[in-house]
């Protein structure tokens, strides 16, 4: 099998520039030097930057000192993949069976004589890719993947290098070992091997190929052996080609066009069933479907319908009915006779799946309800209503104050950076936890019998017995009234974070106070005044 490889050099930079152009932040010509940095180290740079002396592995300040107008792009592998997807689709349109190897590199079985020979096929692909905005693409055709990739790397911009059948070994063996530095799966290992071979006095892959298999296996390990096999030429090629996305949309035409919604609904039944069955064959269900109705060759009614669970064929027919009826003028004064008539004869109805989900997520459990998946979906609806951050999952963590001992993470995210729970945390309040923990502690007042504010001395003694208290909590009228203290416990002094000047730092002391109404509070005294940290409601 002949393999055609398309290579877009420095794809990370290209994708980053695409993203910049898309967000509209800045328009940079493709000739602008640019580099992708990870951890302040240059990972990839484009040709213009290389011409200025920027190299892979350089520090950011070195790169910028050599080329001050360098556009710096953050590394983002997802972005590279995302922007490579249209390229794959473009090639797939011309030649199915595309195998994405990594962002910027794809392989496809070479289309023999269909486009009039391999160079012509490459030229056609190149034309389509340039139309799609990817001007730097190179092609290589050979008997195996490794040779084809090396051929593509030899090719000039938008051109193709064809290694004729059987000539792979000769082509490969003429190459210098440094091509190993960025092969299909080389990376750091490839760079190391290239460096080692150069120092051993083996400048070309041909020299390496002349070593015996046992020697290579002993000295260079599994990776060396795989390179050696490729350098022999004729390493087996296995392309993990992807299948073109299946066509899931269904449509039906009516000849002659139908005039009443009932007739349309009756006629779309088999199409709706075919649509649902087509999805079910791939273990999918649709949760959002777009229904289009055509009249006189134009789409006269199109609407996306959402379903709380998933569409069955019956649901689809109902939606068609509603949609065609809703297209009418207001029905209040219309006679019963033409209640079902549509404004123009419908000649085509189309079902397009907008959102599909795996059927297993919607299957009913034996005892009813596939709980967790449904919850996930329901909560996603709430998130769509009030925002991603507004739905939280409470988590526990270690800490001294009650507010420190809990935290929340946005729904669907994993908690990170939590303090461990299994430490002793001296100074924490044991016993039952308060059911209300205030995020912003409301101010409070605690006075002794004579009406003086109670404070705590430096030695941790209270200046008077708490007699009455009130808490300035919004929306809690009862707590704002002065309440006599029934019993109290404390003080538990804490000298926390004395090294920072602001916030909740410095000396404080906690009290548990029970009012005569039976409500208990966790109050904290600070040099700035009293606060209510939590309530045992």
């Amino acid at each position, binding site marked *: 099998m002949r393999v055609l490889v398309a290579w877009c050099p420095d794809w990370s930079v290209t994708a980053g520039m695409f993203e910049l152009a898309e967000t509209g932040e800045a328009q940079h010509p493709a000739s602008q030097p640019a580099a992708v940095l990870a951890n302040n180290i240059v990972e990839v740079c484009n040709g213009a930057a290389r011409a200025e002396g920027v190299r892979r592995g350089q520090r950011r300040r070195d790169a910028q000192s050599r080329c001050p107008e360098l556009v710096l792009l953050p590394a983002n592998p997802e972005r590279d993949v995302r922007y490579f997807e249209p390229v794959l689709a473009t090639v797939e349109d011309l030649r199915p069976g595309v195998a994405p190897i990594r962002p910027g590199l794809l392989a496809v079985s070479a289309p023999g004589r269909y486009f009039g020979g391999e160079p012509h096929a490459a030229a056609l692909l190149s034309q389509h890719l340039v139309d799609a905005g990817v001007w730097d693409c190179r092609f290589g055709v050979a008997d195996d993947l490794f040779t084809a990739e090396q051929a593509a790397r030899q090719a000039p911009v938008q051109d193709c290098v064809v290694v004729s059948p059987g000539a792979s070994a000769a082509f490969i063996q003429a190459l210098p070992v440094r091509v190993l530095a960025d092969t299909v799966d080389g990376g750091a290992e490839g760079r190391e091997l290239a460096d080692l071979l150069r120092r051993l006095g083996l400048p070309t892959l041909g020299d390496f190929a002349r070593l015996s298999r046992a020697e290579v296996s002993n000295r260079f390990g599994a990776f060396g052996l795989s390179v050696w096999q490729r350098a022999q030429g004729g390493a087996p090629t296995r392309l993990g080609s992807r299948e073109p996305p299946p066509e899931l949309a269904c449509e039906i035409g009516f000849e002659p066009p139908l005039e009443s919604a009932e007739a349309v609904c009756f006629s779309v039944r088999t199409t709706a069933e075919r649509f649902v069955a087509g999805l079910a064959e791939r273990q999918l269900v649709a949760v959002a479907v777009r229904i289009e109705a055509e009249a006189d060759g134009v789409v006269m009614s199109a609407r996306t319908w959402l379903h*709380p669970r998933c569409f069955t064929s019956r649901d689809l027919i109902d939606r068609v009915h509603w949609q065609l009826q809703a297209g009418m003028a207001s029905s209040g004064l219309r006679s019963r006779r033409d209640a079902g008539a549509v404004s123009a004869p419908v000649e085509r109805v189309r079902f397009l799946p907008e959102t599909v989900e795996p059927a297993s997520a919607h299957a009913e459990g034996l*005892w*009813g309800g596939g*709980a*967790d998946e*449904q*919850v996930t*979906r*329901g*909560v996603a*609806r*709430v998130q769509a*209503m*009030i925002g991603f951050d*507004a*739905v*939280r*999952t*409470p*988590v*526990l963590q270690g800490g001294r104050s*009650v507010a420190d*001992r*809990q*935290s*929340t993470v946005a*729904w669907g995210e994993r908690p990170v950076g939590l303090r461990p729970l299994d430490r002793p945390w001296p100074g924490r*309040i*044991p*016993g*039952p*936890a*308060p*059911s*209300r*923990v*205030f*995020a912003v502690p409301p101010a409070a007042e605690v006075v002794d019998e004579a009406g003086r504010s109670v404070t705590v001395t430096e030695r941790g003694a*209270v200046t008077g*017995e708490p007699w009455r208290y009130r808490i300035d909590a919004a929306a809690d009228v009862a707590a704002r009234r002065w309440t006599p203290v029934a*019993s*109290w*416990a*404390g003080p538990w002094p804490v000298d926390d974070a004395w090294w920072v000047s602001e916030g909740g730092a410095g000396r404080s002391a906690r009290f*548990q106070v*029970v009012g005569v109404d*039976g*409500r*208990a509070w966790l109050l904290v005294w600070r040099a700035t005044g009293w606060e209510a940290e*939590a*309530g*045992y*409601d």
Partner: protein
Amino acid sequence: MSAQPLEAVATVADLQRRIESLQGGPTRLTVPVHPVLEGLVQLRTGTSYAVDSATLALGLAAGASRAGEWVGFAGWGDFGAEAADQWGIDLRRTVLVPDPGDLWLEVTAALVDVLKVVVLKPTGQVDAKSASILDARLRARSSVLVVWGEWPRVEARLSAEQAVWSGVGRGRGRLDQRGLRVAVTRGTRRSARDLVLP
């Protein structure tokens, strides 16, 4: 020898109950309650309950969570996660919407769709019509609404009266255990019971 048949009978009864509940449609299933509240109130799906204290709200949600169901808390900005954990609520199966804003009714309706017990702390007034729409939703979705605050029509209203804390004196000890008299009002009927909360 005698324990095993008894156990089997209990299992069979449990399974029969579940089959019945599946056959009888989603309304009016019983939802387990926390052992402390056992006998005081029996939660049924499709109905709403009002409470006037955070502890009782946690207690009503705890039973379902201990039984492996999902629970949610809406409008409860000062949620005490540790207290919930001590009640036996599994925080991994807990959805918290601390501040639903003006959309609290819609958010509650969406949560009722998927969760077994939803505790709502209304941030505004609710009229009888919206409440009845939510009630209809509850019945259709077989879940329980616990309202911490006022609600137009509820199955039962639980209020905490006469809390007595033990373990704390005047300047010594610490809060240890709470004895609580809980009054349950169903329509005009009223009963009360003293509980010792965990």
